[in-house]
């Protein structure tokens, strides 16, 4: 119990460290929030106007929940890069030679990234409202939807941390993330209906963790969704939107902590 409390205290100190980085480098903060704003504007206006939703409804309303989840996915790059930069720095050696909980650095990173993601989500929601997106089923369900998006972000953070520790080179992380994230967004329900894709690709898209979250939050926001194909994955999107983040975190958090402990062996 005492150990857990000390570990939590150390983790919180590291969280504050990461938040201070953000505050002390305003140009980074601007970049950080430019991406979600750009996503909303580009996808909301450029695509939003010319397309129709399979199954009916406003395309922009359909698209924005997808943009929310997609922004979280691309956050993997920021996480991975920051971890790779840290791992290559002497300061981690100091942490590792001090009586600090082994989990502290990574827990601090994931907590700070969750806090950043919450900020990011507020920016996204405000931008969304500005371009005409809305939630229709009450603030309670809307907040639940935001929670699901953040749950996905936690899983993505741990994948990013693992990536950063394995690759250990900030530039390489940057170049890996796009080819990793792009197919995940393309083969999903973010832009279009999986049933419009060739059979096996459609199945892949339905089982995509991103799709699960997006389908679930469309429902919670009351935004136009897709008429399900009746497959298990689409019928149980809400369940999957909770299960996927839990499973991914359960897999990648231990992997990340293990590679942290193996640093500079």
């Amino acid at each position: 119990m005492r150990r857990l409390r000390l570990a939590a205290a150390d983790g919180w100190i590291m969280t504050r460290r990461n938040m201070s980085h953000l505050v002390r480098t305003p140009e980074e903060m601007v970049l950080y929030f430019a991406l979600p704003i750009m996503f909303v504007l580009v996808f909301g206006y450029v695509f939003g106007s010319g397309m129709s939703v399979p199954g009916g409804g406003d395309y922009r309303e359909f698209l924005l929940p997808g943009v929310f989840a997609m922004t979280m996915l691309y956050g993997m790059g920021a996480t991975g890069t920051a971890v790779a930069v840290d791992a290559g720095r002497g300061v981690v050696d100091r942490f590792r030679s001090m009586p600090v909980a082994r989990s502290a650095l990574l827990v601090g990173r994931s907590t700070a990234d969750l806090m950043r993601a919450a900020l990011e989500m507020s920016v996204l929601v405000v931008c969304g409202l500005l371009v005409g997106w809305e939630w229709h089923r009450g603030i309670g369900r809307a907040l639940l939807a935001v929670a699901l998006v953040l749950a996905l972000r936690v899983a993505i953070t741990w994948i990013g941390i693992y990536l950063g520790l394995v690759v250990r080179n900030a530039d390489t992380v940057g170049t890996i993330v796009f080819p990793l994230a792009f197919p995940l967004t393309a083969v999903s329900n973010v832009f279009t209906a999986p049933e419009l894709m060739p059979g096996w690709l459609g199945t892949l898209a339905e089982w995509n963790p991103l799709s699960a979250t997006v389908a679930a939050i469309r429902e919670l926001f009351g935004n136009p969704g897709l008429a399900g194909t009746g497959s298990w994955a689409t019928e149980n999107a809400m369940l999957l939107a909770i299960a996927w983040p839990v499973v991914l975190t359960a897999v990648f958090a231990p992997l990340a902590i293990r590679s942290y402990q193996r640093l500079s062996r």
Partner: protein
Amino acid sequence: MADHAIVAEGLLKRYGDKKALNGFDLAVRTGTVHGVLGPNGAGKTTAVRALCTLLRFDAGRAEICGIDVAGQPARVRERIGLTGQYAAVDEQLSGRQNLVMFGRLLKLRPAAAKRRADELLAQFGLTEAAGRNAGQYSGGMRRRLDLAASMVIVPQVLFLDEPTTGLDPRSRNQVWDAVRSLVAEGTTVLLTTQYLEEADQLAGRISVVDTGRVVAEGTADELKAKIGGDRVEVVVRHADELAAVADIVGRVCHSVPQTDRDVRRVGTQVADRVAALTGVVRALHEAGIAVEDIGTRRPTLDEAFLQLTGHRANEEATA
């Protein structure tokens, strides 16, 4: 308290075929400063990282304050401070934020952590730069901040890996003073260096390391004595007298003297310096050669090092 604060026996660390540590032995008495002297690539940093729980070694045994490093690293970490060869501070935080953060991680209360940070900033001449990002510090300032960070709480054992490399003389003296004041409080210090002067100044005992092993150990005086006694040296007025003088010195001292043309100097090791000196003076007088300078001196640690490892302290090991 354990007799020896640091003990290492037969440490082995492989990187592929290369053995960075190859049977590294060390014993440092509690409360003393021990120097580890060695050229680039000798294994100094590897040894320090192994002792600080940062690196798992392949064989051997190490203890800090009687605690097994491999078996109980967490307990070792509670007792040590480390200033590594490369500055280990957060470059995106200010100097002050760094020290406060380390203090908090060492379980100081917020107010105490801030107070200690300010003390250290003053001690290392960083008060003015306290609010700036450590990333904008000069190399010397970052080094001093790094040292301050390893002294936030007085550690039982402090590891310093080339702490003054790249520092100007004033900063170097600050570092030396800080080390001395820690030792006065009872801290045991392991200091690696390429500067023989630094080892001579600070360390009671010195281990000379080469290719992952300790090749000699003792006080500075013992190391100097180990490579033979005093030297007699003669500096001539004209370079063309070097050969004749070398001949005389060699005959009187029964040795083959070394000649350094650049400084017009002939020197050799001798067993009895007074007898050798008077013998050489008399022989030179008889030969009618007036010299510029003549004298005896003890070998420098630099020469001791050269003799022990086969190369100079700041040369890359070629083995």
